[in-house]
């Protein structure tokens, strides 16, 4: 944790998740069926990132 993160390292994940979320917002407007499914998949990305981070914090953190 002592290593400074570069701007790229800080922003890579948020930007990718932001773009994926934007795809999720727009695709369901464009059509039904496959477009809806694309939207559902896109929106699971930010939620999956949160679950991943919480799971990692629980398993890696030393007990208090």
């Amino acid at each position, binding site marked *: 944790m002592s290593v400074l993160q570069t701007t790229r390292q*800080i922003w890579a994940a948020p930007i990718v*998740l932001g773009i994926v979320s934007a795809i999720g*917002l727009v695709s369901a*407007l464009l059509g039904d069926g496959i477009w809806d499914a694309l939207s559902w998949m896109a929106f699971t990305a930010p939620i999956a*990132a949160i679950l991943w981070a*919480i799971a990692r914090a629980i398993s890696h953190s030393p007990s208090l």
Partner: protein
Amino acid sequence: MVLTAESFRRWYLTHKWTSLICTLFLLMLCLTGLPLIFRHELTFWLGDAIEPPEHVSASAPANVDALIQDAKGRRPQDAVKFLTKDDDYPMWFVSLGDTPTARENSAIFTYDQRTGEFLKEYPVGHGLIYILLTLHVEMFAGLWGTLFLGAMGLVFVASVVSGIVVYGPFMRKLPFGAIRRARSTRLAWLDLHNLLGIVTVTWVLVVGVTGVINTLDRPLLSYWQMTEITDMLTPWKDQPAPTKVVPVDEVIRTVETAAPDLAVRFITFPGTPFAGPHHYMVFMRGQTPLTGRLLTPMLVHAETAQVSDSRHLPWYLTALLLSQPLHFGDYGGLPLQLLWLVLDLITIVVLISGLYLWWQKRKSSAEDLLMQTEWAAKSDYPLEPSAEAR
């Protein structure tokens, strides 16, 4: 992106104060908005409306005028204002008012589109959905309540944008997704606040901005009524009132022939502000998820059932109509509604954790926070990220 200590302090204070101003209102909006994601489903679950039967033995579509007459018979003193088609079910809503120009509805009746059978009276001015919706839209304070919530929405957008700016410096020593659980409860919540906030930021900004646009619906519709609608009605301004009014079925046949690729969404009746005394105004929608949200107004003469005029919607109403699905989350089926629910819950956690973080350290300055994030520990300007990055 270069952020000096001074500009970090300014952005941090912006984030703190904009958040403090809007958080309680945003919490109210998130809590009332949560059940409203399922507004259409709730309407049926609560029994406010009943679904038309799946199969009926009607040979031809029902006479629409017959159900208009039925509605008039139920409230002879009232005027029919609108006829609206349900988006999902073969169902008409007939909205009545004390007068054709009354803003408030006096009653709404639902009918089976195939048989013309009366289904149910939809509750007006009471019921759980009405309370949730009125809180969410205007806090029972009318147009000023709506505009106030719009202003709070703008403050919220400023809070989110400043939150994005201060996220970078906070993450200088932390890999993405790190949650420092072992150090202190406050630090764990700070990391969680930053993580939940940054990964949902696109959604929150879109729902926030479209919410602000939606608060302008009444002024925008009034402006349109005063300008373009008035312009469309001007040629008939000085003509005598129509001696007979054609049944609405003829109007529907006319517009469906004139615009075969569009479908009727709702019809405003003669005498209402959007139709004028001599016409019906029919609002047509497209057939795709996108164009289904947009409306094409067609002015149909009430005596002759001829199309008098048809216009494109002005850009500001197109923006309003497109901002509705993006705010409501009702355009991608039940899974999208459930995702809206989860993202709404995450936003509630971000709001409450933000309040908690402020309460815990309300006496500490931005500088203390920098120290706590260990990120200002090194002497030379740690606030300027290295030049190699974007």
